[in-house]
């Protein structure tokens, strides 16, 4: 096996939302208390990603999948853990030392209406990052590169003098992809890149992403909630629940027979085109907030197979015979 492109080790990201000192003061039982409110968005996540591979992170809203992608991109500093790119630590680098990695790692965003600056022409949106990283380029070279990328994403070089509001959602998403590609990255975090698009446009963008991956041997970290899309294009999938990874496996193995009870519930909930009434597995209760994480296994409150150990002890990912990793005491013990 080749060396991983990206390695994430025991990554934690908590957000302090307690506000100023005054907002932290609480009053309970006749006493003043100072409480900090932490959103524990990402907890102890580890995985590796190989060059040219698509690794998908799925989960429901609030499970921390987007935070994970953004922390890897350096948009949020992690609280602890390591992020390695081709073996080099990239977490906690200052602006200057991070710059070379910015060319290698790019990102495509969810909302095509917010991800392009409304006051910048397409030429500026694409040209600014290119010139920033390649100050030696002259105007002609910049223009050639922009035209080239525009054609690659199925756009039209004529577009570049226009403003974002003149384009449809699908076209904007193509432009966003072009912006990511223009600095020649090896690795792209795609944060729900198609969920804001209509069905017939989704297929176009997915095809484009798959084409580009083949052409440039791109590695994708694909963050999504749509399981059928994930099943279609990923090599490996990680399922997240409340900030933790419950199951991580090759796509085929996972979708054929999910092992973690949460993965099972999630998959049974996908509406299938053919097949009428669903056989969906109903979960009790609701997703707890990431502010007060449950003890032990974060899923224990809703799990049909819960026992005392699940309440007390946090399960670690362990590798099964088929190569998948599952964080579940029940699976480990052979109960499930």
């Amino acid at each position, binding site marked *: 096996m080749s060396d991983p492109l990206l390695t994430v080790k025991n990554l934690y990201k908590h957000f302090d939302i307690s506000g100023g000192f005054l907002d932290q003061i609480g009053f309970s039982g006749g006493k003043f208390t100072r409480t900090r409110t932490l959103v524990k968005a990402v907890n102890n996540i580890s995985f590796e990603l190989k060059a040219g591979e698509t690794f998908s992170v799925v989960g*429901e*809203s609030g499970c921390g999948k987007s935070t994970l992608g953004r922390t890897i991109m350096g948009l949020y500093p992690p609280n602890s853990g390591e992020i390695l790119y081709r073996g080099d630590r990239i977490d906690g680098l200052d602006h200057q030392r991070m710059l070379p990695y910015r060319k290698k790692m790019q990102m495509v965003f969810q909302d095509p209406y917010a991800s392009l600056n409304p006051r910048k022409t397409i030429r500026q949106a694409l040209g600014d990052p290119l010139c920033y990283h390649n100050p030696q380029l002259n105007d002609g070279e910049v223009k050639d590169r922009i035209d080239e990328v525009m054609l690659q994403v199925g756009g039209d070089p004529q577009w570049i003098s226009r403003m974002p509001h003149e384009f*449809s959602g*699908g076209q904007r998403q193509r432009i966003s992809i072009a912006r990511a590609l223009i600095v020649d990255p090896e690795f792209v975090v795609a944060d729900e890149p198609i969920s804001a698009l*209509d*069905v*017939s*446009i*989704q*297929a*176009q963008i*997915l*095809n484009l992403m*798959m*084409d580009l991956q083949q052409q440039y041997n791109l590695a994708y970290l694909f963050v999504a*909630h749509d*399981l*059928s*899309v994930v*099943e*279609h*294009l990923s090599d490996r999938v990680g399922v997240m629940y409340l900030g933790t990874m419950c199951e991580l496996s090759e*796509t*085929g193995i996972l979708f054929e027979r999910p092992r973690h009870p949460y993965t099972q*519930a*999630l998959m*049974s*909930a*996908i*509406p*299938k*085109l*053919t*097949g*009428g*009434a*669903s056989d*969906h597995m*109903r*979960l009790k209760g*609701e*997703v707890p907030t990431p502010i007060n994480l449950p003890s032990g296994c974060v899923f224990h409150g809703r799990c049909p197979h819960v026992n005392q150990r699940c309440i007390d002890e946090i399960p670690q990912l362990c590798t099964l015979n088929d190569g998948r990793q599952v964080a579940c005491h029940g699976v480990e013990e052979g109960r499930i």
Partner: protein
Amino acid sequence: MKKLLEVKDLVIKFALRTGEVTATNGVSFTLKKGERLGLVGESGAGKSVTGFSIINLISKPGYIAAGKVDFLGEDLAKIGDEKMRSIRGNRISMIFQDPMMTLNPVLTIGTQMTETLHQHNPQMGKEEARNIALDKLRKVYIPSPEKRLDQYPHEFSGGMRQRIIIAIALLTDPELIIADEPTTALDVTIQAEIMELLIELCETEDMGLILITHDLAVVGQVTQNIAVMYAGSVVEKGPTAQVIAEPQHPYTQGLIAALPQSSRHGERLNQIPGMMPTLKDIPPGCAFNPRCNQVMDICKTETPGLRPGKNGNLAACHLYPPGQEEQG
């Protein structure tokens, strides 16, 4: 079965500053008592505005320019404001898309439930209204409803709020529920629960349901019949299973083929080229003709009416012989 609702040749226009725009162009469908119908299409196809036109609540500057909405013999498009109000929320209830935005943040759930009852039954006592509200909350599986009744919307999660909205819809035992993308803002596991709940309630209460959504798979689970909309017109109608298994209109075919489920893992998807035209520049002839892979000369000049396709589903497409166009 008795006919509950008949929408006929509905034309909805928007009077914009820059001129009039047609949002739906002659939409027709019928719904029997207790029937569940899916209204499917991409954003801008006119499905939501059609749903709102049934209760005559299109946002300004939209208005019903032509056609009728026959609800148990009354034309809702022409009925007066006062009479319409006695039907809205009473005999026809609506479920909105985003449960986080739908409930009034400063009123308790109880107030928002009982006010509907009092509005439609002015003589009803407070105690009775409260009991009905509790009963409906139990029907949608809200735990400890007595406590919940006095709480405010922000104390509920999205999935719970959508249940409450369904409970509000049930309050007056309506004959028809119109659900506009009721699960788009929710997670899959919750979506599945809400959809199951809707099916269950429609069956036990014998209510009609119009489910407006972009998600073919959801429609496939919930409804018996389906109407596919494209650029302001219904392009295909028929029993849900049949439409999904053997779509007749090239747009429906393309839409289903484009889903990842329809292709093998890792393969390119069968995309439909181009995008849906905006309301301002709908092409002449069949609105789908620039994107259609089976386009003919006639498609560019003549707008096809609905006609039976190979399996009997109605499709608005020149591929099938005209002459037996559905009247109404």
